[in-house]
């Protein structure tokens, strides 16, 4: 078709291949479906379903709590005496027993255990603390003895960064 008969210029836009070939058929098919009543939803619901829905949902949110009378199995006065004696015994045992127990020794902890602890995120180090630990000089020269090129760093970041998934505002499933 020449431009005289087809004055609409594409202005750089394109369509999927053979898009215009199927348009008539698609539209007619949808019209046919509508004529045949396919556009009306073929589903139905039980009688009175929507009338009772609010009640069902609210009942799920606020279930009626039955009040149960609690019968104490422990005699309060006797329990107070027993609890006091037990507490004093535990205190004595914790102060005087096993005084020979060895003191905490930092050197006894293996390097791998420290690494594991840090990797699991049990240690909370702020940016300021990190800054003190690793001086700017050390960062400029050689990061903890590792010589990392820009290319290697880029490759690492490209491989390890994850995309954030979209979430619904304020919604927790």
């Amino acid at each position, binding site marked *: 078709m020449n431009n005289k008969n087809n004055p609409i210029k594409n202005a750089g836009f394109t369509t*999927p291949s053979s*898009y215009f070939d*199927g348009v008539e*058929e*698609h539209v007619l*098919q*949808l019209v046919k*479906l509508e004529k*045949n*009543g*396919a*556009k*009306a*939803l*073929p*589903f*139905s*619901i*039980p009688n009175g*379903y*929507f009338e009772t*829905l*609010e009640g*069902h*949902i*609210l009942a*799920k*949110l*606020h279930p009626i709590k039955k009040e149960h009378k609690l019968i104490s199995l422990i005699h309060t006065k006797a329990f107070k005496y027993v609890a006091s004696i037990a507490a004093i015994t535990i205190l004595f045992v914790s102060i005087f027993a096993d005084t020979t127990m060895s003191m905490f020794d930092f050197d006894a902890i293996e390097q791998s255990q420290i690494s594991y602890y840090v990797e699991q995120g049990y240690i909370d180090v702020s940016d300021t603390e990190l800054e003190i630990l690793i001086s700017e000089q050390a960062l400029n020269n050689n990061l903890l003895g590792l010589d990392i090129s820009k290319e290697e760093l880029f490759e690492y970041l490209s491989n390890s960064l994850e995309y954030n998934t*979209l979430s*619904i*505002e*304020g*919604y*927790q*499933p």
Partner: protein
Amino acid sequence: MKLETEEILIADLQSETNRDIAFRELISLYKERLYWHIRKIVLNHDDADDVLQNTFIKIFRNIKGFKGESKLYSWMYRIATNEAITFIHNKAKHNQVSSEKVQQIAINNLEADVYFEGDEIQLKLQKAIATLPQKQQLVFNMKYFDEHTYEQLSEILETSVGALKSSYHIAVKKITAYLTEN
């Protein structure tokens, strides 16, 4: 719903005193629209009822976190969509089959369903829709049956208008091909 009315309703839903009354009003306003949206995804009434109730419970529990960055209506539709799709995934996991298989079973059960009143062409259309990928099914259902605008769909499904138009076009093409072949 007017913007002012919606703002009042949200404020009531987020307050301690008027919460229950406002929530009852919210259910009344949106129960049918959300129900039919869910029903078109899960197909069966009992499943749609379960998902709808869960949707409203999630809305109730999460309404305090709603800051009005989108319309309340879009926010609820997104929750309903998520709940319906999660329901199908969970059912598939429970029966150790794929989500597509779950939908295929639901389609096969339609003919025997007392709450399905469709004729042959309507059943065929449902079968054709079930052959589409999940996202295309959503776009087709919401555009064709619910007559949402592309702008509304864009807000609900967090997809660009261009991508939605393309998705709808592909869906129509596939449905046409299915109906012609069958």
